[in-house]
């Protein structure tokens, strides 16, 4: 028998082999291997490997200072989580959960940088750090030699820290210079109370849990990390009756027992009208407290509010007089009541006059005093026994008066107008130097030179009690990940600048001096001996006096612990209205009608309301993961979206998604229109930031041409300290081809 290989038999064999292979596990094995290969593709990022450890720290992305637990894999800082055993009961916000990503933010600089900030399209370029320090040092030396140190200033975006003392010492050693602050809405509210109390040693400590009613003038009690810190938690004794004054239907307003949809900018007349009813109908027994101290022949507080009958201010407030009267009577029924100001923190301070009127209303309804909802606590100065020193508000510095401005960038979220900073400079050679990790945010946005500092989580800072905190508190933010070589502690930059300016620094190691300052504060707390300490090593909270000494308190703080003390059991104090009463009455009368009149005079049909993004304070850099909130949800409005009510949109002929030009007296900005039924007619709302869509990519076309103003500048933040409203127009423009 012969085996003859024919073409047909060969094809049969090959066909059989292929069919057999298909039915065998081979193709499935190949598919499986291919899918495994795709999982190990070089395009897929590799997670760090190593032992998992945890370190307790404190969030420094906003002044609240929530306790955080950092998860490390090997030496990589992977994520941060809240700490239920911390005195804040495990509160944290999206900013805190994204803390680990702030180290790798695309806007982070990797060395000293420079640019010509006068051009909006200018890009940062790397420069030699030593040469930059030498250049700034020469400017300092020249100013000192010429006796022009008043042309040098430090802007501290987060005052009351130990580092703030280092800034002041830096100025003292130079022989002069101005220490500037740019108070945010919370700090401005607290400052108004301090002025009313007449003592910088006392700070307001509002405690809603002790109130039977809360009247909040825009205070974001439900949708801002600092508001959450104030809001009574479940389990606290009884939820107070909550009345929210908000121009728009915010989440806080939706959760209030009663919402007063007042007209934008009408906080002052509304507060005074409620006070008017309380006094007129003799619903408050505390009017005498306000009369004390500032009295004289000019009359009482009752006379100050006499002109603000609900019938007179109802139109300005956009409310019926009966609503205002009913609110006053409701608050009187629910005494003691707490009245809070602040407004939307993303839109800058509410205004000193508004805050003063609101605090006066709070005094009429139940405080301050022992057990009252409006209690007092020592200010940071008093808490640590440090010398009182004056700070100048940035808005009070004359335009064109500064040759050199150092900006502390350790609070990346402060809402600040770069245009305001630029206006303070003297001439073309004047410089803004930012000590910041980011080429953006509050500090970096307007700067010419940037000296890189460690990112949050990479350096030891302290967290004094935030403005309007119900209790005194103090914590440190222990380092959870090492800073890269090119990131230098701000205190070390100060030491190098001192040396470069020809001075002999106290210590060449500025960070060690900073550490010593922190330890002095711990020792001061220990010496005072009050309050209690949360020790994360065993999760316990015990009296401060149970610690062996300041060294143990330092150890606890180094482990992410926190000190806290209840508000002072202070009896009622006499509050003093600032300035001359007749002048105050005139200012109140002018402003009560003035905000709306100013808008009308602007001749623009819309009111522009700036606002903070949800759970942010505006103006800073957002962690990349927060882009999910901006791009994939409606939770975090970006700065290039203008919201108008459907009714207004119909009137203006603006469909959702339309590209439009938003114009105010200050300039223009290109935006995409969205419809938002939570807004009143005639209002356009734009977030001040942070921009969740800006991850450090190339500037958009509009920004590169310099035609787009940042939102605070668009609202006039460069011209006036209160920039919560602006007259505006919104017109469709042809969408540029990308």
């Amino acid at each position, binding site marked *: 028998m012969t085996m003859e290989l024919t073409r047909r038999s060969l094809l049969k064999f090959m066909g059989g082999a292929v069919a057999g292979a298909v039915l065998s596990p081979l193709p499935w094995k190949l598919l499986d291997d291919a*899918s*495994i290969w*795709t*999982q190990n593709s070089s*395009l*897929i*990022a*590799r*997670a*760090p*490997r190593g032992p998992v450890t945890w370190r307790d720290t404190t969030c420094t992305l906003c002044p609240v200072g929530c306790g955080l637990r950092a998860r490390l*894999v090997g030496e*990589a*800082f*992977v*994520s941060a*989580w*809240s700490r239920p055993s911390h005195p804040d009961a*495990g509160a*944290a*916000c*999206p900013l805190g*959960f*994204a803390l*680990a*990503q702030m*180290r*790798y933010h*695309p806007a982070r600089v990797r060395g000293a940088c420079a640019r010509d900030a006068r051009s909006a399209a200018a890009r940062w370029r790397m420069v030699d750090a030593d040469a930059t320090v030498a250049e700034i040092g020469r400017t300092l030396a020249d100013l000192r030699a010429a006796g022009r140190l008043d042309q040098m200033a430090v802007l501290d975006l987060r005052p009351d820290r130990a580092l703030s003392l280092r800034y002041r010492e830096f100025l003292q050693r130079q022989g002069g210079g101005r220490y500037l602050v740019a108070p945010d809405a919370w700090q401005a509210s607290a400052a108004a109370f301090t002025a009313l109390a007449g003592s910088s040693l006392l700070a307001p400590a509002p405690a809603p849990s002790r109130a039977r009613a809360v009247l909040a003038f825009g205070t974001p009690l439900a*949708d801002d990390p600092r508001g*959450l810190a104030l809001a009574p938690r*479940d389990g606290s004794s009884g939820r107070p009756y909550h009345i929210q004054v908000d121009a*728009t*239907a915010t*989440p*806080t307003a*939706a*959760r209030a027992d009663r919402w007063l*949809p007042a007209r934008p900018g009408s906080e002052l007349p509304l507060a005074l009208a409620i006070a008017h009813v309380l006094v007129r109908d003799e619903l408050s027994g505390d009017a005498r407290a306000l009369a004390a101290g500032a009295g004289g022949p000019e009359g009482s507080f009752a006379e100050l509010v006499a002109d603000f009958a609900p019938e007179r201010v109802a139109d300005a407030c956009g409310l019926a007089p009966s609503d205002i009267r009913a609110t006053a009577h409701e608050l009187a029924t629910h005494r003691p009541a707490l009245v809070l100001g602040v407004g939307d923190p993303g839109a800058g301070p509410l205004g000193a006059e508004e805050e003063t009127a609101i605090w006066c209303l709070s005094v009429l309804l139940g405080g301050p005093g022992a057990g009252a909802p409006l209690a007092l606590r020592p200010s940071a100065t008093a808490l640590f026994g440090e010398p009182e020193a004056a700070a100048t508000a940035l808005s009070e510095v004359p335009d064109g008066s500064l040759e050199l401005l150092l900006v502390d960038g350790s609070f990346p979220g402060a809402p600040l107008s770069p245009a305001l900073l630029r206006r303070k400079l003297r001439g073309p050679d004047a410089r803004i130097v930012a000590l910041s990790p980011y080429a953006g945010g509050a500090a970096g946005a307007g700067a010419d030179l940037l000296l890189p500092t460690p990112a949050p989580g990479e350096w030891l800072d302290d967290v004094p009690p935030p403005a309007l905190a119900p209790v005194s508190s103090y914590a440190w933010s222990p380092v959870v990940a090492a800073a890269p070589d090119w990131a230098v502690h701000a205190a070390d930059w100060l030491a190098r600048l001192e040396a470069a300016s020809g001075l002999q620094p106290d210590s060449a190691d500025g960070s060690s001096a900073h550490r010593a300052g922190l330890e002095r504060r711990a020792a001061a707390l220990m010496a005072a001996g009050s309050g209690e300490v949360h020790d994360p090593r065993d999760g316990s909270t015990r009296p401060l006096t149970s610690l062996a000494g300041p060294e143990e308190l330092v150890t606890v703080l180094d482990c992410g612990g926190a000190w806290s003390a209840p508000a002072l059991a202070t009896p009622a104090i006499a509050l003093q209205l600032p300035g001359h009463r007749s002048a105050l009455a005139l200012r109140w009368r002018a402003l009560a009608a003035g905000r709306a009149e100013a808008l009308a005079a602007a001749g623009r049909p819309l009111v522009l309301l700036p606002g903070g993004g949800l*759970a942010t304070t505006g103006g800073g850099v957002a962690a*990349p*993961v*927060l*882009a*999910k*909130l901006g*791009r*994939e*949800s*409606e*939770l975090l409005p970006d700065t290039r979206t203008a919201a108008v*009510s*459907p009714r207004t949109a119909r009137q203006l002929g603006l469909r959702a998604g339309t590209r439009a030009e938003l114009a105010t007296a200050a300039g223009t900005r290109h935006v995409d229109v969205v419809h938002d*039924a*939570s*807004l*009143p*007619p005639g209002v356009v709302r734009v977030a001040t930031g942070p921009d969740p869509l800006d*991850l*450090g990519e190339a500037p958009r076309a509009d920004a590169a041409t310099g035609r787009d103003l940042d939102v605070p500048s668009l609202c006039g933040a460069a011209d006036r300290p209160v920039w919560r409203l602006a007259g505006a127009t919104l017109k469709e423009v042809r969408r540029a081809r990308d």
Partner: protein
Amino acid sequence: MHATENTGARYAMAIDLDKCTGCGACMVACAVENNVAVPPPAAAANRGLTWMAVHRTDNGQEWPAHRPVFIPIPCQQCEHAPCIHVCPVTAVQLDESTGIVGQVPARCMGCRYCMAACPYHARYFNYFDPTWPEGLEETLNPDVAPRMRGVAEKCNFCHGRLDRARERAAAEGRPADEVVAYVPACVEACPHGAITFGDSRDPASPMAQLARDPRAFRLLEALGTGPKVTYLSADPAVRRVGLSRLDMVRGATAVTADGAEGA
């Protein structure tokens, strides 16, 4: 096909919509925990991966009668999950010991039938290679593998955390079949305590109690998918949206108190 045996755990979640303020902490915590990549800036908004998506809706009224409502929607972990039935490559499985519907990326061939079948729109597709800004891979969670382009993914009740809890239980010498307690990232992150998680088969657990709450309802309950996520709201309009008009949480329309579509 997937007969439910009355053994093991049935991990379940309850979300109190009356407490949710739409802060987004759950979304951020979920993305951080599960290595969810941010899509490229030029990508369309619906190309995102949002295992926990917080949708904003309202009562359909314009200011001043307007009231915003936030509805967080993770995978509902259905007991009778449509996505399981339609998957041609068994890349979706119901874990009988936990009740968690798992997604196996290595098996997924990217047909997206599961996305079409999911009535809750809680499934997402990797349209892009998962990339992070330079250096950000250092913040990836090693317990959760990043997924590749071309596969579907969804919430799995933080299975990486469940695995860690099981490892701890094993290290402590506890029985392998013991129901371990853990919390997903969104539960840990919620600053309002709006999200509760636990074993719904344990009658003493808060989950079991919340399921009996008169405010409780489940999304599109009439479909019979058996979601393991329970929602709580005292607002009848919100309950009506959840029970029958989930399309309204997508932004185009909203529901009024009487159930009619708003503007």
